[in-house]
């Protein structure tokens, strides 16, 4: 079933705040082998001008992937999750995520199209603090594979 192009431009209500923990940043950094002290030691992060340990660049995906379920599981849009493939991912940072951040995601559908029997869905997630300070904008493009 082709995706409904009238969903382009739709913005969803902000998600519940995600509390960024120091240990979560350390765990994520360790899982990708990122040994820079600023990911692990608050004093090293403070020396770079950050209030607490700094998350690696792709850390925000933890928050945005969970938030994107708002779109992917929207029954009105009707994405077939079993045919969903992650195509592209992009981040544009205002500043790095740091421990102590309380992050809220606002999802927007930027593009919906069908080509060659496959569906394409581009989402933009604006990640900001609960106080409204922008942190990072995150784009994901998904391919919904057509029936072969």
């Amino acid at each position, binding site marked *: 079933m082709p995706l409904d192009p009238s969903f382009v431009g739709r913005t969803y209500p902000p998600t519940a705040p995600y509390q960024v923990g120091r240990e*979560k940043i350390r*765990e*994520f950094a*360790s*899982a*990708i*082998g*990122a040994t*820079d002290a*600023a*990911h692990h030691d608050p004093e090293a992060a403070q020396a*770079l001008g*950050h209030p607490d340990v*700094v998350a*690696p*660049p*792709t850390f925000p*995906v*933890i928050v945005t*992937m*969970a938030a994107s379920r708002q779109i992917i599981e929207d029954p009105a849009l009707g994405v077939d999750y079993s045919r969903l493939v*992650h*195509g*592209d*991912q*992009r*981040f*544009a*940072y205002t*500043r*790095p995520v740091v421990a102590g951040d309380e992050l809220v995601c606002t999802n927007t559908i930027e593009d919906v199209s069908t080509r060659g029997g496959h569906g394409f869905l581009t989402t933009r997630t604006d990640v900001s603090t609960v106080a409204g300070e922008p942190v990072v904008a995150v*784009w994901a493009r998904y391919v919904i594979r057509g029936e072969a």
Partner: protein
Amino acid sequence: MELPAKTFQVTRADLIRYAGASGDFNPIHWSDRVATKVGLPGVIAHGMFTMALVGRAVAEWAGAPDAVVEYGVRFTRPVVVPDDDQGTEIEVTAKVRDVTEDGLTRLDVTATCLGEKVLAQARAVIRTAR
């Protein structure tokens, strides 16, 4: 200018650790049974794990953990990770495309596994070292 290549070894244990750290428990990243059922040759790495390793390379080239201003990739080919002690390897190289007047450096990044590109249009913008 070409930056020095970096090589990342990826084993099944790394995928399990990344699954736990990221919360992405899709079974194609840990179960051969499920991966082969959906037509993959076997367990594959999370695309976001590959992206994270490449992001690490970019931050290391930048010389600062907080220097990445923009970073994007297209996932073109799965990274198959065999169930043995060696796993597989991802090699990452980059070229400096340009340096802007306001102190930003744009990189074109290449990531390969067994000689095949696993990412396309991999680009990063970093703040030039302080």
